């Protein structure tokens, strides 16, 4: 089943011709409208008109998260603000978030690609889509919502949290499709079990899970505990949001990236050179139809591989493998992107706190946990318990306020956090994906 059969099954030569014309058009637009791209293209000596084939994409400079930060908030927008109808944001590497803007056409495209993704996952008109992605600046909730409406399904905009109510609504409203992070789905399963609710008695058929890395083993567990087909979806706000790529229910083997809108490449993150098809590396995406904030060769920092092998589902679009890590130090904790540098800047802003810290990420009862260990030196030490407890509460609150992630702060003795000569080890991630 397809949502847009013509484009989803476009023969490769026609797809590539479309990609080239769209690539040239987006290059013309950013060169004309975005000073950053005019400068970076001029510096590398390439004019949009010099791009004669898809291979020429390799000659273009990359765009990084740092470039987005330097352009905060709107400097990378290629459309005037009068045409921007929506703004989303995600965590930046330090204090400021990464901002993206969508024109009405961008929202249309996003809705269509998300609708295609639903169909690829086996959903259809008539489904009741229980959308437990967070609504707000995070793209997950609204992205899935618009796609569900475009598909013509009934969407329940329940957002995240309040798990008992989620389970009651799934039971009473007859939800057939669940969208949330994979770890939250398992948390729901545990909660349901403790309430004596058996997922085999629910109507759920498909779960569409993303926004954090997961594994085949976790898929098995989710499918067994929630009694549904678990589908992996990929997206990032910089490129669009959810629905950049998704598995098909027919194969459940690799995520089709919607190539009529995005050009994927895999590079060696050290050298920046493309790697041969099928090899692992960093995913780089060029948006070829976006108007609000088109990005040329955006370095996603996600590690995956790419294959153009035909798929049994009939879609001609390339597939990326399940994400297997990051080429930077970003952590995804309960779906929230967290950079250690963000936590560091919060800690050093608290008087007396040394920048010797360690983040311990784990998973307890299927939910990610974050422990922030801070060394106690003489400046923050007190002979009174309440003073030290006030400090840990303050650290927890500031991290929650700034990053939206719940953590527990733990004070440790000085010099217990390992010092290293090169890059300090700041993170211990005990989660098994």
């Amino acid at each position, binding site marked *: 089943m397809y949502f847009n059969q013509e484009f989803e099954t476009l023969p490769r030569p026609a797809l590539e011709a479309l990609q080239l014309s769209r690539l040239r058009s987006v290059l013309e637009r950013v060169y004309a409208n975005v000073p950053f791209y005019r400068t970076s293209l001029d510096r590398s000596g390439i004019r949009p008109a010099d791009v004669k084939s898809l291979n020429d994409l390799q000659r273009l400079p990359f765009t990084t998260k740092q470039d987005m930060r330097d352009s905060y908030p709107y400097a990378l927008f290629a459309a005037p603000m009068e045409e921007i109808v929506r703004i989303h944001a995600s965590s930046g590497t330090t204090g400021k978030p990464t901002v993206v803007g969508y024109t009405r056409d961008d929202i249309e495209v996003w809705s269509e690609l998300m609708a295609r993704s639903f169909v690829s996952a086996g959903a259809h008109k008539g489904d009741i889509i229980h959308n437990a992605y967070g609504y707000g600046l995070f793209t997950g909730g609204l992205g899935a919502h618009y796609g569900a409406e475009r598909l013509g399904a009934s969407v329940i905009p329940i957002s995240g949290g309040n798990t008992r109510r989620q389970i009651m609504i799934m039971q009473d409203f007859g939800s057939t499709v669940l969208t949330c992070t994979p770890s939250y789905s398992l948390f729901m399963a545990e909660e349901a079990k403790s309430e004596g609710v058996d997922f085999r008695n629910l109507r759920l058929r498909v779960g569409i899970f993303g926004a954090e890395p997961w594994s085949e083993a976790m898929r098995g567990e989710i499918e067994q505990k929630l009694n549904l087909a678990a589908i992996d979806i990929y997206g990032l706000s910089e490129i669009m949001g959810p629905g950049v790529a998704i598995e098909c229910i027919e194969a459940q083997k690799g995520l089709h990236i919607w190539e009529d809108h995005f050009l994927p490449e895999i590079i060696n993150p050290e050298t920046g050179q493309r790697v041969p098809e099928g090899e692992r590396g960093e995913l780089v995406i060029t948006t070829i139809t976006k108007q609000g904030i088109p990005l040329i060769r955006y370095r996603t920092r996600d590690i995956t591989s790419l294959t153009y092998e035909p798929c049994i589902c009939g879609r001609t679009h390339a597939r990326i493998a399940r994400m297997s890590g990051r080429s930077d130090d970003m952590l995804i904790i309960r779906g929230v992107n967290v950079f250690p540098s963000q936590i560091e800047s919060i800690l050093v802003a608290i008087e007396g706190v040394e920048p010797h810290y360690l983040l311990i990420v784990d998973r307890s009862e299927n939910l990610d946990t974050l422990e922030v260990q801070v060394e*106690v*030196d*003489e400046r923050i*030490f*007190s*002979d*009174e*318990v309440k003073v*030290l*407890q006030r400090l*840990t509460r303050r650290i927890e609150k500031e991290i929650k306020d700034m990053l939206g992630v719940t953590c527990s702060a*733990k*004070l*440790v*003795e*000085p*010099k*217990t956090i390992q010092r290293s000569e090169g890059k300090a080890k700041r993170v211990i991630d005990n989660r098994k994906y």
Partner: protein
Amino acid sequence: MKVEQLSIFIENKSGRLAEITSILGGSDINIRALSLADTSDFGILRLIVNDVESAKQVLKAKGFTVSKTEVVAVEVPDRPGGLSLILQALDVEQINVEYMYAFVERCGGNAVIIFRFDETDKAIEVLQSRHFNVLEGDRLYSM
């Protein structure tokens, strides 16, 4: 009239207390009184020793976070209601006791209690004006 107390940060893990007492013992430092405040994650060990400076140096050299705090040692009549009299006097003046613990040795026939007040100087003034015996540090360390 104040007494110097050492406060040491310790994580709740086995052997830390033994390590501290062994470091002090090995440096010929005698522990005169101690109290341990603990939470689920960490503890604060408070010590009165016979040689505050040396104790602080050796513990710091071993990597512990150590601070000096001023506390007050008060002689408490060893009879029912003895401590109550002191606490009432402080309460009237709205002085808070952050924590307190007993000293090992007796002073004559009386017990000795170590107090940590929110207002140390005012507490000493109040206690002395009510004729409670506030002990000098030097006398306490060598008791």
